[in-house]
């Protein structure tokens, strides 16, 4: 068992206590007029301005797992792991095109989830259900991975007890962290992570800025760091390279594009967007979110610094996921290691809270109210959503403790692939009503089946199935991201079947939205609503 790093642990616990207090007090922040409505608990009253949204989205999208996994990928593979940078650069211009429309139509009709929109647009309950279930399915392993992020930090702090500790001692800190998180999410809803995100993002910025200045000074400059990395990857079977081999360029580009398209299909991203108070708030945020991308890029470089610092050198079984926490512990004074680990730990809590709220909203709106109890009042919805948010977290905890950690990582990779299959129905629907809802359903099914099956067939040294996210693209012959190939198949099926269904004049569901709804700004919906929108709530 490793020694406990006491100063670091004390700082870590202090920060943790601070955000816990903030989490509970958050329910009084911008107190609601009608606290029983799901808009309040699940979307923070749809009232967040530009800066709150910026912190919330930053806290939401750039998770603890990102902080651990991105530099770990660079540490292990070099250039290929850097794809997170083009991914986050491409994402914002891409979503700039459609998120304002999603915000507007959701505001006019009171939609809380993307599946609400699909229900209203196509009048199709089955399509809405699969969009909701895909969202829940993709979110669950993501929450579980936040726990993996906390575990990595606790391990390096020495309180995890290592591999051989009794499982209860080993996981007790994790139980406490998640118990506290569940309690304040239950009581404060989306306001808790929104408030805590300020602390999280501030800590992360401080730690990254200090790290990219201080660590290179100690290691002898960036030139030396990259030389050390180049030396490591020049060895045969190093598993990585400083630039991409020609046959990996397609993989790099398709992973960046596919991940960027998937990013704002995730329910927790949509929750962050719908909680903002105006259409322009959404647009402004797409312009200022790259500040986080810059941070992520610098963070990725920490993977190379870990190589140069000799982290894990000579240890064949070294877990790459620990490379950055270990680098911090080796390089920083103890108290600052505590700050850095607090940043990662709190960085897990914020997204875990938002993800569990988003999954709870989906279940409540699109499964419970739609299929089980259509007469549910907004107060019933809030009550159910709060309970489900607890269940989701317990589920994630059981998942991480009961199953192989590798399974969580595999499932999260699959989650990205799955959530991308809702893109055609959601983004297509924001611009056109041309697609037939059964064609979209079939496209979704085809994409899910193809993607899952192909991923199942990929082995890696760590796992027999789901060992990667790239495979040969049929018809092109290059290796590309499976999710994007599945998306192309999805789109193809949706287009072809829509043509057929239109030719046979298959009946369509009612569309409750009107063209003007997609460009509505806050405050101007009342005078324009000549026909009263049906089923707004």
């Amino acid at each position, binding site marked *: 068992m490793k020694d406990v790093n006491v100063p670091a642990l004390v700082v870590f616990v202090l920060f943790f206590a601070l955000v816990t207090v903030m989490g509970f007090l958050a329910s009084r922040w911008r107190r609601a007029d009608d606290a029983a409505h799901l808009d309040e608990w699940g979307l923070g009253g749809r009232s967040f301005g530009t800066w709150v949204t910026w912190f919330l989205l930053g806290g939401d999208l750039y998770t603890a797992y990102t902080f651990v996994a991105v530099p770990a990928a660079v540490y292990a593979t070099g*250039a290929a792991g*850097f794809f997170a*940078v*083009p991914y*986050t*650069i*491409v994402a*914002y*211009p*891409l979503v*700039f*095109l459609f998120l304002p429309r999603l915000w507007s139509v959701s505001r006019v009709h009171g939609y809380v989830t993307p599946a609400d929109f699909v229900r209203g647009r196509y009048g199709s309950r089955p399509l809405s259900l699969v969009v909701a279930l895909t969202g829940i399915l993709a979110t669950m392993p993501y929450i579980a991975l936040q726990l993996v992020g906390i575990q990595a930090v606790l391990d390096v702090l020495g309180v995890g007890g290592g591999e051989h500790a009794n499982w209860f001692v080993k996981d007790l800190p994790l139980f406490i962290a998640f118990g506290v998180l569940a309690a304040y999410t239950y009581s404060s809803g989306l306001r808790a992570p929104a408030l805590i995100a300020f602390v999280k993002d501030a800590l992360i910025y401080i730690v990254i800025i200090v790290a990219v200045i201080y660590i290179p000074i100690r290691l002898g*400059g*960036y*030139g*030396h*760091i*990259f*030389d050390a990395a180049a030396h490591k990857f020049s060895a045969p079977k190093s598993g990585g390279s*400083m*630039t*991409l081999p*020609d046959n990996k*360029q*397609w993989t*790099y*580009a398709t992973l*960046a*594009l596919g991940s960027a398209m998937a990013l704002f299909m995730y329910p927790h991203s949509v929750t962050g967007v719908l909680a903002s108070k105006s259409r*322009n708030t959404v*647009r*402004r945020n*797409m*312009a*200022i979110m*790259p*500040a986080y*991308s*810059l941070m992520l*890029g*610098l963070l990725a*470089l920490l993977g190379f610094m870990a190589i140069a610092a000799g982290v894990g050198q000579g240890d064949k079984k070294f877990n790459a996921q620990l490379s950055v926490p270990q680098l911090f512990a080796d390089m920083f004074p103890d108290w600052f290691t505590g700050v850095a680990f607090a940043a990662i730990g709190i960085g897990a809590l914020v997204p875990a809270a938002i993800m569990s709220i988003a999954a709870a909203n989906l279940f409540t709106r699109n499964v419970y109210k739609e299929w089980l109890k259509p007469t549910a009042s907004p107060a019933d919805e809030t009550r159910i959503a709060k309970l489900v948010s607890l269940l989701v977290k317990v589920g994630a905890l059981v998942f991480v403790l009961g199953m192989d950690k590798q399974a969580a990582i595999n499932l999260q990779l699959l989650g990205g692939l799955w959530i991308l299959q809702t893109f055609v129905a959601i983004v297509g629907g924001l611009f056109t009503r041309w697609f037939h809802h059964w064609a979209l359903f079939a496209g979704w099914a085809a994409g899910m089946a193809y993607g899952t099956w192909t991923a199942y067939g990929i082995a890696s040294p760590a796992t027999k199935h789901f060992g990667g996210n790239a495979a040969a693209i049929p018809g092109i012959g290059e290796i590309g991201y499976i999710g994007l190939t599945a998306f192309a198949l999805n789109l193809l099926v949706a287009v072809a079947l829509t043509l057929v269904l239109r030719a046979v004049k298959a009946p369509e569901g009612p569309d409750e939205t009107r063209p003007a709804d997609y*460009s509505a700004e806050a405050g101007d919906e009342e005078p324009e609503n000549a026909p009263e929108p049906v089923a707004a709530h």
Partner: protein
Amino acid sequence: MPSDPDATEPVMPEPPGDRVPAVTPERVLAGLALLVPIVALLWVSSYDKTDPPAGGVPFFYWYQLLWVPVSAVFTVAAYLLINRDEKARTAARKAGGAR
């Protein structure tokens, strides 16, 4: 910003009355501003090399990092253009409603 000479002209003729056409110079330019970073980053072979390095950092890495602030500038430009476009649309709608 790369300026396509054709892009500054409205593709559709101005319809009579005060309706703003679907395709305006602002929208086209904003679309281009959003497209530039996407194309630049997905064109991997254009930057998949180590030379020239900057301050010890290989080209592959500093070039992509540089694109983060550059892409933000393009997105801000798109934001300003779309804002102008929407103001014009709102004004036109109000004028139309007052008729």
